[in-house]
């Protein structure tokens, strides 16, 4: 019982990081109708920037700011420099370019920093707090939880409560009509990419201290889980990303805890297959909206 509670709690913290990353995929999808396979590579590059800044200043928070900025700048550059020049009639060319970018970025990071994992120190204690004899979340898990929930709330407010968010949503849904209403659609697309890059970098940065450390592939598994979540929840559903992220996080935590780490990828795959069999559009997909 104690073990179950502990696994559920850590699964929740881990799941929120997956949810954040999935949310970043949803944001790009909504801005550009593209699954950004390069998201993990750019996020990892941004975490390297954070690592350098933290190393130079000794401050985790300066590193966090650097990750957000680098993630946003890198993603905006990818959109302006690459994606804007790719034919957009079908999604395939964009995805192929993104996969190519993964290879280039990961090789470059590998050449620059080598294969070893660089340990990143968390700003809070990582040992679980014991409440009434039951080990629960660590202070760092709590920090992750608070940050993730705050970011989710902030994004919900930005998209649904501000005129910038209205323009972002309109540009994605109906670019031509939006332009006729004076919305600067190309700028909104770049902004969507930048926002998505910052959120992905944040998710990767939150994850790395709980893992082996930082190397070029640190965010790969995070991407696989988040991609599963985005497909589960429906690529255009922020709610789906949130619920799905927590579900996958808890599932991975439980399976790893009870059956071993080797079984976790199988469990994720089984969940993905099951959902796609029952609801091919994703659990939270709003089919009539998509086809209208």
């Amino acid at each position, binding site marked *: 019982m104690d073990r179950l509670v502990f696994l559920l709690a850590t699964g929740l913290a881990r799941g929120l990081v997956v949810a954040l990353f999935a949310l970043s995929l949803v944001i790009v999808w909504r801005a550009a109708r593209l699954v950004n396979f390069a998201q993990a590579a750019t996020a990892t590059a941004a975490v390297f920037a954070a690592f350098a800044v933290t190393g130079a200043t000794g401050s985790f928070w300066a590193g966090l700011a650097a990750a957000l900025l680098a993630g946003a700048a890198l993603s905006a550059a990818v959109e302006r420099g690459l994606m804007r020049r790719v034919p957009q009639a079908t999604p395939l060319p964009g995805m192929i370019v993104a996969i190519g970018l993964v290879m280039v970025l990961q090789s470059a990071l590998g050449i620059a920093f080598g294969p070893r994992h660089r340990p990143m120190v968390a700003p809070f204690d990582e040992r679980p707090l014991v409440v009434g004899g039951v080990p629960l979340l660590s202070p760092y898990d709590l920090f992750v939880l608070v940050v993730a929930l705050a970011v989710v709330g902030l994004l919900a407010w930005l998209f649904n409560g501000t005129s910038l968010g209205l*323009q972002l949503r*309109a540009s994605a849904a*109906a670019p031509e009509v939006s*332009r*006729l*209403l004076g*919305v600067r659609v190309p700028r909104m697309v770049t902004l969507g990419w930048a926002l998505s890059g910052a959120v992905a970098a944040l998710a990767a940065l939150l994850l790395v201290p709980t893992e082996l450390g930082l190397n070029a592939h640190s965010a790969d598994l995070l991407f696989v889980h988040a991609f599963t979540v985005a497909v589960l929840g429906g690529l255009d559903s922020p709610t789906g990303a949130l619920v799905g992220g927590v579900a996958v996080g808890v599932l991975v935590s439980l399976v790893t805890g009870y059956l071993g780490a080797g079984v976790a990828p199988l469990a994720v795959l089984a969940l993905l297959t099951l959902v796609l069999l029952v609801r091919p559009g994703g659990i939270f997909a709003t089919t009539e909206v998509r086809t209208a």
Partner: protein
Amino acid sequence: MTPALAVDGLTVGYAGAPVLDDLRLEVAPGEVVALLGANGAGKTTLLRAASGLTPPRAGRVLLDGADLTALSVEDRARRGLAQVPEGRSVVTELTVDENLHLGALWCHPGRAARRAAVARTYDLFEPLARRRTSLGHQLSGGERQMLALGRALLARPRVLLLDEPSLGLAPRVVAQLMGVLRTTARETGLTVLLAEQNVTSALSIADRGVVLSLGAVVADAPAAELAGDPTLRHAYLGF
């Protein structure tokens, strides 16, 4: 007087022969012009080239004498050139209220001003007021067309380009839309270029009719004259 809208030497083509060939058209301030012609005559192409959605091969587009040709679609819109495109131009993923706010964004700075402007639109189109929280895809065809028109008017445009607003609508709804257009033009001096298949409705509110055929202007006359000329009606308008 400087025309509110002028296209000059406009040539537009997709792949082969040009769809519009060296076209010239002027619309005076406050004038309502019906743009008529058979299917495929080039009405939509002309409106899209004017708003910038379809890049022309040659020619210029002028708004109050200022050359807009080099401007993007969004900059032309901000200068006062509004277009309600063909068919369902409502953003279906947004609510009625959000669609209207989108139309009011850059012309009514500030939240309060926007809300007031949107409220006036609800007064003008009462059926919309009852559906403010409905999503675009939940609206009927008539409600969508009202929303598209109301949204375009919110930006207080100088020139409004409308592409077949009557498409698929009941006669009563068409009459209502045309009425709003006529009144707005008279009261605010709005200039309207109205592409229509529904010749009778369009000519009933227009000052002038322009008939396109194979990408060229083949008739340009006062609306009453055009409606009463049996040869013209027969040759180009099919009734």
